[in-house]
């Protein structure tokens, strides 16, 4: 997690001092230093790029402007006047342009989605959705249009403020707070907002959790499997507890659909547990839905660490859910990086407890994310085949690995960005980029970016590598060397270095240079560069390769780009 405080500029059309106070004091990572834009000047600050608020450049900018102030037609709708929807669309577009303009001055811009407050005329009753003057109707249309305008930006994200008000219930606002201080929301709304802002920041910085490890008995289903057998566990059926466990599994499935990996660590009989998962009619999750499992009688902390290692994930990516407080305590004390939430004893609360975990938030979900669990299962099969072949290189030859190289572009930008911002371990410089920064960087003369997709006879791993290069003064610097852990150890690492050296030679460079920037998580990358064959210019930091010598391409990998002239047109 980031150790320094992220600078968050808060631009609001109300007194946001309480929000700033809560944000400062919230100790959940990442720590945030809020800066309040001058009260009553939200429009001026958004319009004025030279305003002092924008310096130093904020990491996050929060723009929280209530609907009636942002769009005059929405004020009309709340006053129950006829809405001119053409005019409203124009006003929403103008507001979207303001946000997009401001987003150029910050890494990420977050905008709580418009919601009516207690100070607005009440939006309720059968008239609320009247197509001519219904405020709910107009507000919904405006929100949708705004999202359509900003959704593709990659730097502006709406947050679900309705949810904050719902959670705060009767304490969503206080009349006295409004009339005395012009604060339209109660502190419970702001607390929920801070939680979501931090979750969004973690997601945008690539720090969202990636793996949810579950216990089985009284967690994934009710009862002790070993005692009651698969037919005796509480799951689904005409039984309130069973329905609660089934609903919890459905919620887990929705995480799976968002690209979160599921795993099992349980003290149980493995064969029996796998049979229950495969055969119980009410199971919503089947064996293929789990990226891995450790079902045995060993210590759970060891098992969680082991499973994370198998999936090539750091412990800071892991969440562990267990109904047993002793096991939770054991995990917390032995693996402090793993998030171990307190867990209710009542299964009726499981689903809401899961929903309250603001640790899986990511701004985008790609097809690769959704299929990742399947990919891990494929890898398990691949590893099983490895066990049958004594020599690793012989085994690698049998895989038929193909590395496909494509220049960065519109078609692969989202996935590349996600890879760059999420990958921790095999990451040379851990350079995090927004979409705008990525486009700007690789549009510069002398810079090139390549997306690497990997497939083999077991399946397609998708876009799993990114190589960034920059030519300057005869030196080809590797600015980005990022590989998903899913494809490590199969020659992809060496193939990407070969690509870098080929590019450098065609660009008439003298040297390829890799500068390793250490983080708490990228030691595996240093291990690779130490073994790479590059000459060490500065110990554990700078590695170089002379372009007059061909860097050897792994013989067991086919690179789907011609070895000579493969970068024709890309070379600066």
């Amino acid at each position: 997690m980031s150790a320094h405080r992220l600078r968050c500029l808060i631009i609001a059309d109300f007194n946001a001092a309480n929000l700033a106070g809560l944000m400062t004091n919230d100790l959940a990572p990442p720590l945030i230093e809020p800066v309040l834009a001058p009260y009553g000047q939200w429009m001026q600050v958004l319009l004025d790029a030279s305003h002092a608020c924008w310096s130093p450049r904020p990491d996050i900018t929060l723009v929280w402007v209530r609907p009636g102030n942002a769009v005059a037609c929405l004020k009309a709708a709340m006053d129950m006047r006829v809405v001119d929807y053409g005019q409203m669309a124009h006003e929403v577009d103008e507001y979207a342009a303001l946000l997009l303009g401001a987003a150029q001055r910050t890494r990420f811009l977050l905008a709580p989605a418009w919601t009516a407050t207690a100070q607005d005329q009440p939006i309720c009753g059968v008239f609320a959705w009247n197509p001519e003057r219904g405020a709910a109707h107009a507000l919904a249309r405006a929100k949708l249009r705004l999202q359509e305008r900003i959704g593709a930006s990659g730097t502006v994200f709406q947050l679900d403020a309705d949810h904050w008000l719902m959670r705060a219930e009767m304490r969503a606002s206080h009349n006295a707070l409004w009339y005395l201080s012009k604060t339209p929301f109660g502190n419970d709304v702001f607390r929920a907002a801070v939680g979501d802002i931090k979750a969004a920041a973690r997601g945008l910085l690539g720090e969202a959790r990636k793996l949810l490890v579950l216990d089985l008995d009284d967690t994934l289903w009710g009862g002790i499997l070993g005692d009651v057998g698969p037919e005796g566990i509480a799951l689904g059926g005409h039984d309130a507890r069973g329905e609660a466990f089934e609903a919890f599994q459905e919620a887990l499935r929705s995480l799976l659909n968002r690209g979160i990996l599921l795993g099992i660590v349980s003290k149980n009989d493995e064969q029996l547990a796998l049979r229950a998962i495969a055969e119980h009619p009410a199971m919503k999750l089947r064996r293929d839905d789990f990226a891995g499992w450790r079902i045995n009688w060993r210590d759970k902390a060891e098992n969680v660490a082991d499973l994370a290692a198998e999936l090539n994930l750091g412990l800071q990516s892991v969440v562990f859910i267990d109904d047993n407080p002793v096991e939770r305590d054991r995990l917390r004390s032995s693996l402090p990086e793993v998030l171990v939430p307190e867990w209710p004893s009542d299964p009726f609360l499981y689903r809401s407890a899961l929903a309250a975990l603001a640790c899986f938030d990511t701004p985008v979900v790609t097809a690769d994310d959704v299929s990742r669990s399947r990919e891990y299962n494929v890898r398990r099969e691949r590893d099983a085949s490895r066990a049958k072949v004594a020599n690793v290189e012989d085994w690698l030859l049998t895989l038929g690995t193909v590395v496909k190289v494509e220049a960065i572009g519109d078609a692969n930008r989202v996935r590349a960005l996600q890879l760059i911002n999420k990958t921790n371990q095999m990451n040379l410089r851990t350079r995090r980029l927004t979409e705008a920064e990525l486009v700007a960087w690789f549009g510069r003369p002398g810079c090139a970016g390549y997306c690497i997709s990997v497939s083999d006879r077991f399946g397609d791993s998708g876009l799993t590598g990114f190589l960034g290069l920059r030519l300057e003064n005869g030196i080809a610097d590797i600015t980005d060397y990022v590989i998903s852990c899913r494809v490590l150890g199969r020659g992809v690492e060496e193939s990407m270095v070969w690509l870098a050296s080929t590019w450098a030679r065609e660009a008439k460079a003298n040297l390829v240079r890799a500068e390793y920037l250490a983080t708490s998580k990228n030691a595996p990358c240093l291990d690779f560069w130490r073994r790479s064959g590059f000459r060490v210019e500065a110990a554990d930091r700078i590695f170089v390769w002379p372009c007059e010598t061909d860097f050897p391409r792994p013989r067991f990998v086919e690179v789907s780009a011609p070895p000579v002239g493969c970068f024709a047109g890309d070379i600066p």
Partner: protein
Amino acid sequence: MADDETSSQGEDRLSRVLKQAVNDVNSLLPAEQNIVLAAETSLMGDGARLDSMGVINLIIAVEGGVEREYGVHISLMDRLIAAASSQTVTLGGVRDLLRAELGSQH
């Protein structure tokens, strides 16, 4: 004895309300500006640690706590602001005001 117990329980409830309110307000303040849960803590007037926003937050937190704990609404804002014009308002003063109000309502 029974009366003593009732009185003690009432004080516990009141202390709980004030403690929660102080915690709520402190969650909004920088650590160096936190207020101490003590009768003599000055809230408004001489030596006051809270600015106007802090006072508003504290009063709303106390009113909300009383509603949750006692199920009644007591409006403190006007009375405390009026009191502050002539004297220092302390946390103990707020407790005394609440005790009197709750006593008169029960």
